[in-house]
């Protein structure tokens, strides 16, 4: 027993082969955690993404492209682009106006107003569609009057645009407000004191300061506008070739057991999501200082 003691002491003094600082984990634990974490991300994120493209090309490239150039698919793509082309600029304009009023002035009830702007994030997409049916439907509050005068809002393109604006409402504003509050109003006050008009100040001072955050907000707004399903599904009426957006077209094809075509159109939307993610990551890496700290969506 006693002969072992010096050897034990030596083992304590000699540097251990895998020395770790007390604020890290043992290598084995570390690798286990990385393995579990990455396996979870692979199973929940990468596998579904891969499955979309795999199913789309299951029968080769020909049926894939045939599904994309078929007239109903083309009209769905056109409608999706049309809806985004209206709803994204609408929310861009709203975002700029609202963030100027909210970030550049001090007033009571500011955080309550921001909460109201954030409301659509907490509302189920289906309810976002339902509210317009209750307003503009043929049994709605003002629907009968509008329909009698020849204006069809729901189960038509205007309803799809409205529902899309509803669900994407906060995207631009919530990117701009925290950033503009952080930047303060010193630059604008300097410009005004040097004789710039209000609009000159906005376009030459404020806009350059927020351009990357604005682009970031528009990017996320556009992705959601093109991909929205629940709200649009409720108000669209699903008229093929007329009121079908790309996500709705995917659903119809899938319910008709036309899986290759459904996944082909879905893969186009997935590709759009990937492009959005890449651009978003580039913006985050290059201009992180010029984006607001929070990005909830």
């Amino acid at each position: 027993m006693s002969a072992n003691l010096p050897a034990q002491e030596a083992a304590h003094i000699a540097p251990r082969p895998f020395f770790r600082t007390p604020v890290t984990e043992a290598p084995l634990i570390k690798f286990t955690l990385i393995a579990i974490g990455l396996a979870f991300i692979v199973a929940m994120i990468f596998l579904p993404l891969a499955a979309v493209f795999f199913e789309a090309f299951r029968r080769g490239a020909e049926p894939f492209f045939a599904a994309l150039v078929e007239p109903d698919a083309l009209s769905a793509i056109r409608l999706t682009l049309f809806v985004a082309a209206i709803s994204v600029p609408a929310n861009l304009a709203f975002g700029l106006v609202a963030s100027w009023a909210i970030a550049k002035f001090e007033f009571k009830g500011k955080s309550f107003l921001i909460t109201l702007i954030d409301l659509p994030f907490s509302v189920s997409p289906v309810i976002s569609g339902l509210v317009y049916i209750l307003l503009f439907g043929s049994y709605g509050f003002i629907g009968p009057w509008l329909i009698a005068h020849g204006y069809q809002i729901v189960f038509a393109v205007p309803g799809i645009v409205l529902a899309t604006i509803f669900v994407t409402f906060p995207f631009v504003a919530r990117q701009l407000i925290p950033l503009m509050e952080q930047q303060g109003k010193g630059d604008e006050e300097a410009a005004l004191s040097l004789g710039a008009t209000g609009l000159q100040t906005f376009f030459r001072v404020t806009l350059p300061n927020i351009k990357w955050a604005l682009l970031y907000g528009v990017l996320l707004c556009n992705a959601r506008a093109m991909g929205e399903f629940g709200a649009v599904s409720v108000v669209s009426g699903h008229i093929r070739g007329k009121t079908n957006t790309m996500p709705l077209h995917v659903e119809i094809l899938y319910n008709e057991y036309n899986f290759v075509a459904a996944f082909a159109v879905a893969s186009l939307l997935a590709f759009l999501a990937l492009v959005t993610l890449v651009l978003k990551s580039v913006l985050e890496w290059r201009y992180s200082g010029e984006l607001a700290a929070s990005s909830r969506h």
Partner: protein
Amino acid sequence: MNSLATSLRPAPSVLPGWGITMGLTLTWLSLIILIPLAGVFIKSAGLGWDEFWRLALDPRTVAALKLSFGAALIAAGVNVVFGFLAAWVLVRYEFPGKRLFDAAIDLPFALPTAVAGLAFTALYAPNGWLGSWLVPLGIKVAYTPLGIVVALIFIGLPFVVRSVQPVLADFDRELEEASATLGATRLQTVVKVILPALLPSLLTGFALAFARGVGEYGSIIFIAGNIPYVSEIAPLLIVIRLEEFNYAGATSIAAIMLVISFALLLLINLLQAWNRRRTGIQA
């Protein structure tokens, strides 16, 4: 609207445009969001108290609401565990492809929900990549409530990770060193020093994921199987009632969901304020 804007009266400022920008903001907000949402409550009030509760307590409605809230609760719970783990791995460790994995976390924000629903159905169907392994083991995911939970884990994951990540990255390592020098084991340091500091951000992520999961529609309807009383979620029941032209039925479900969503939103705001006070970080 403009008179309301001016009556809010901001602190004096030399910047122009208060009246017009605040007026436009309130007008647009009211027209697009507030008035349409108010319609749900006006319509519900028009039903009368008894009729509203008769519709709301319809067994099929109750089953759908229970499923939506229950599945969202389980999925948010799973996301707290794995989202924390993913955030920990992404913040604390270096490994090849880290940036790719970090960027991929946001996919659920960018991927249209219908596409996600299709993808999970393909994966977990009996002949899918994962289903062909799981079904022989007796684990059925597609066309069961378990499938709903899986889809909601996907939808909620980025909320938890993105809430926890900045707080963890900003965490003062000296506190961990102090804890270690005082004799705590690594596990004790993590559980008693780090986790309490992350608690507000974990709860925020949980609440955000839960709130989003309750209302989720697109990613679920493909994988759920949509059997009444078993795997029929509340948003789908709203759609079914609308297709039956049963507007009263649809509205009563919507009103209940809205009230609970607004309560959750209030809770989230309180949690975020708590988080800001503790860490100074907008999660």
